C-alpha cells in the first residue's frame, strides 16, 4: 500500500509528488499518457509571481478577485498570491529556466486582466519547461511512476477513499492500487469541446467524473474559459504572450475592434462576434522580427508549421477555443474533498481561486501552489489513517467485470460520431453565448446518448494497447460530465465571467454563489451555495 497515490502528472501532480516525497512518503504517480504529455506542457504564456514590491501581493489578489467576478474565495486567493513568491524560488532552485532581463531580474509580461507585468515566463515554453524540470526532480527524488494507466474509479467505502482502480492500457487489465491518501490531478474537461479546444485529446475529465461517481461534489462546472486566440480551425493555442507583447486583434477590414488586454471572456466574445463578419486576425508584424523571434518563438513555429504563415510578415487567422475549466472537484484550502483521504489539485479541482473567469498566468501558479499543499497535507493525513482494506475490493471486481463486458457490447451505435457531434453542439450552444432553449436541446441529446451507451461499444477486440477501448471509456466520462456542465449552466440564470446568457445578459446578486453539483439518490442535483 502506498502512502500517497497521485493520479495525473502535470504541474499539479508532479508538485504534489515532490512535496509528498520530501515529507517522507512513498509515492506513486500514474498517468493515462506518457508522463510529460500533460496539459501543463501546453501552457505557454507565463506564471504569475508577485515579486516586484511590497504591495504586489495585494495587487495580485485584487486582480484575481476582480477577474473571478465575485466567485473567488478571498482566503484561497490570498493563499495563492502569498505563496507565489515561495513557489518561484522553489521552481528556480530546481532549475526551471525562467527568462531573465539584462539586469539579472526575472523577465515579466502583462497578461490580460492584470494591472501590471506579473507573469514570469520561459520564452513561451513556460509550462513545458516547468513540467520537465519537475519530472526530472521527482524521478531523482525516488517518486515511482506508472505511465499509460488510465483511471477508472476511486475505491471508496463508507465515504473513505482507499485508492483507485486503473486500466493498464498496455495489457488491458484492470488493476487496483491501494493508498492511504489519493490525490487527483487529472486536468480539466475542455475535451467536451472536441474539435474546438486548444487542449489535448486526452483532456476528458476522467478524474472529475470518477470523483463524482464516488460521491464528491463538483462546483462551478458551467464556467469554461475560451481562449481568444487559437489558430483558425486547427485550434492550436497562440499564446496570450503575443498580445501581452503588443499584438493586435484585427477584423476582416484590418481594423482593431477590442482592447486586446481585457480579460479573456470579454476578448473571446468580441472575437466570436466579429467572426460573423469574416476572418479575425492576430497581428504582431509591427513588433518587428527581432522581438518576435526573441519573445514568441513558439508562435513563430506554430504559425509556420501548421498554417505556413510567417508571422513577421502576415497576420494570423484565429478563432476562440475552449481552453480551461474553472469548475471542478470542490476542495477546501487544504485540497481536501468531501471524501475522506481523497484530495484534488490543479485544473480538475475548483479551489475557488478563478471563480467565473481565470486570470492569465494563474493556472500554472495554482498547479504549483495547491499541488504542493496537496502533497504536504496528503502525507500528514496518511499518518492519521489506520483504516485498512483488503485487496480485491468491490470496486475492483465490478470494474473488471465492466471492462470485460465492454468487449461484448453490441456496438450498434458509433460513439466516435457522437463524440464528434458533442464537440460541435457544445461549441455552438454551451460555448461563448448560451440560451436556455439551446442548452435544453443539448441536454436532451446527452441524456439520449447516456441511455444508448451500452448499445455503443468497441470494434477493436484486441487486448494490447486498445485505444478504441480507452476512447470509449473517455466518452463515458464525457457523457457524465457534459450533463453536469449543461445542467449547471441552465441553472445559472444570469451572465457572469465566461458564462454568458443571451436570455439573461446581466449578472444578478442572487447568483453571486457557487453552483454545487451532487448526485442525490441517483439524480443529478445542482444547488447554489455561498462562496464564503
Amino acid at each position, binding site marked *: 500500500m502506498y502512502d500517497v497515490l497521485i493520479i495525473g502528472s502535470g504541474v499539479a501532480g508532479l508538485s504534489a509528488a515532490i512535496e509528498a516525497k520530501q515529507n517522507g512518503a512513498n509515492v506513486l504517480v500514474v498517468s493515462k*499518457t*506518457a*508522463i*510529460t*504529455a*500533460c496539459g501543463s*506542457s*501546453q501552457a505557454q504564456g507565463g506564471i504569475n509571481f508577485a515579486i516586484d514590491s511590497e504591495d504586489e501581493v495585494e495587487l495580485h489578489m485584487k486582480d484575481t478577485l476582480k477577474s473571478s467576478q465575485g466567485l473567488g474565495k478571498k482566503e484561497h486567493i490570498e493563499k495563492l498570491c502569498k505563496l507565489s513568491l515561495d513557489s518561484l524560488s522553489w521552481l*528556480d*532552485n*530546481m*532549475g526551471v*529556466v*525562467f*527568462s*531573465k*532581463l*539584462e539586469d*539579472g531580474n526575472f523577465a515579466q509580461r502583462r497578461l490580460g486582466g492584470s494591472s501590471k507585468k506579473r507573469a514570469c515566463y*520561459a*520564452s513561451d*515554453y513556460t509550462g*513545458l*519547461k516547468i513540467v*520537465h*524540470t519537475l*519530472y*526530472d*526532480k521527482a*524521478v*531523482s527524488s525516488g517518486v515511482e*511512476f506508472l*505511465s*499509460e494507466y488510465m483511471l477508472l474509479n476511486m475505491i471508496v467505502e463508507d465515504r473513505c477513499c482507499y485508492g483507485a482502480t486503473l486500466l493498464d492500457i*498496455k495489457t488491458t487489465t484492470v488493476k487496483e492500487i491501494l493508498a492511504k491518501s489519493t490525490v487527483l490531478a487529472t486536468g480539466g474537461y475542455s475535451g467536451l469541446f472536441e474539435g474546438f479546444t*486548444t*487542449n*489535448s*485529446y*486526452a483532456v476528458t475529465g476522467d478524474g472529475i467524473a470518477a470523483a463524482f461517481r464516488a460521491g464528491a461534489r463538483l462546483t462551478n462546472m458551467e464556467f469554461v474559459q475560451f481562449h481568444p486566440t487559437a489558430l483558425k480551425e*486547427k*485550434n*492550436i*493555442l497562440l499564446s496570450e504572450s503575443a498580445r501581452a507583447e503588443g499584438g493586435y486583434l484585427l477584423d476582416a477590414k484590418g481594423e482593431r475592434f477590442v482592447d486586446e488586454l481585457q480579460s479573456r471572456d470579454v476578448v473571446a466574445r468580441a472575437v466570436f462576434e466579429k467572426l460573423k463578419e469574416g476572418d479575425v486576425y492576430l497581428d504582431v508584424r509591427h513588433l518587428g522580427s527581432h522581438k518576435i523571434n526573441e519573445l514568441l518563438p513558439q508562435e513563430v*513555429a*506554430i504559425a509556420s*508549421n*501548421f498554417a505556413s504563415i510567417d508571422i513577421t510578415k502576415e497576420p494570423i487567422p484565429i478563432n476562440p477555443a475552449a481552453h480551461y475549466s474553472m469548475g471542478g472537484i470542490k476542495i477546501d484550502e487544504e485540497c481536501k474533498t468531501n471524501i475522506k483521504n481523497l484530495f484534488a489539485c490543479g485544473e480538475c479541482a475548483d479551489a475557488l481561486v478563478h471563480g467565473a473567469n481565470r486570470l492569465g498566468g494563474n493556472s500554472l501558479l495554482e498547479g504549483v501552489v495547491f499541488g504542493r499543499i496537496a502533497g504536504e497535507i496528503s502525507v500528514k493525513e496518511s499518518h492519521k489513517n489506520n483504516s485498512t482494506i483488503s485487496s480485491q475490493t468491490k470496486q475492483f471486481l465490478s470494474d473488471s467485470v465492466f471492462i470485460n463486458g465492454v468487449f461484448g457490447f453490441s456496438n450498434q451505435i458509433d460513439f*466516435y460520431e457522437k463524440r*464528434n457531434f458533442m464537440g460541435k453542439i457544445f461549441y455552438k450552444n454551451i460555448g461563448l453565448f448560451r440560451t436556455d432553449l439551446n442548452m435544453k436541446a443539448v441536454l436532451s441529446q446527452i441524456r439520449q446518448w447516456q441511455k444508448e451507451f451500452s448499445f455503443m461499444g*468497441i*470494434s*477493436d477486440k*484486441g487486448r*494490447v*494497447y*486498445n*485505444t*478504441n477501448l480507452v476512447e470509449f471509456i473517455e466518452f463515458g466520462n464525457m457523457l457524465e460530465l457534459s450533463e453536469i456542465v449543461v445542467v449547471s449552466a441552465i441553472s445559472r440564470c444570469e451572465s457572469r465571467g465566461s458564462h454568458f446568457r443571451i436570455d439573461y445578459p446581466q449578472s444578478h446578486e442572487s447568483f453571486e454563489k457557487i453552483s454545487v453539483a451532487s448526485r442525490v439518490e441517483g439524480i443529478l442535483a445542482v444547488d447554489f451555495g455561498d462562496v464564503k
Partner: protein
Amino acid sequence: MKITIQRASEQVFEIPDAKYTVLEALRYIKINMDRTLTFNQGCRSGVCGSCACTVDGKEVLACKTFLQDNQKIEPLKNVEVIKDLVVSKDKIGQNIQKYKTTVIQNSQKMATLQDVKKIDVQSNCILCQSCYSSCPVFAVNKEFAGPYILSRVFRYANDIKESNQKEHIDSVQTNGVWDCTLCGNCTLVCPEHLDPKSDIQSLRNMSAVHGYMDPNFANMSFGGDMDFTGNQSGFGFNPNF
C-alpha cells in the same frame, strides 16, 4: 491518396485527397476505416511528444508534418514497438533516474540572461524519442545513453544552479559521450531544434576539463611505442599535462 502503415505487416489505406497532417490522416483511418489502428496522440501542437513516428524513414511528429501521397509511416526505431505505431516509453524514466538529470547540488547562484541562454534550447526537449530512433550507435551498442539524455545531462551540467558539475560528467563516461559518432542525425530530426550533437561535443570538452580523455583515442594503436604526448601507453591526450 495512398498511405502505407507498418503494422504487424504492411498495410495500404486509400483515403480521400486532402491536405492532412500525418496525425489527421491516422485519425481519419481509425475513425472511418479501421478502429484497430493504434497510435499515440495528444496536444496536436508539437509539445507533448506522443505522436513521433517515421515518415519515409525520417523521424517526425505526426501532428506537425503534412502527409504526401504514397508515403510510408512506421514506428520509431531503437525502441520496443508495442502495437502498430505505439512504442515503449519506459526507457525515458529509467534513463532520467540512471543519469540523474536534475540539479544535484544547488549553487545558490542567480542566473543571468547569459546563463539562461546557455541552456534555453536544451530545456525544450519533449522526450519524443525521435533522436533515439535516428541514432546509428544503438545498432552496435544497446547500452548507449543516447542523444536526448546527453542533451539533458548537458543542460544540468551547464546550469549555473548546479555546483556539482562533476557528478553529471562522471555519469556519461561509460556508454556516453565517447560512444557518439557525431553523425548529427539527432540534430537533423529533433522537432524542437535541439542540437544534441553539439551538446555532446560540449560535454566532451567538459569531460576533458574534469580530467577524462577519449577512451577510443587512448586505446588506439599506431604501432609505435611513443605517442604525441610522449606517454608510452598509447595515443592519449591529457588536458592536465
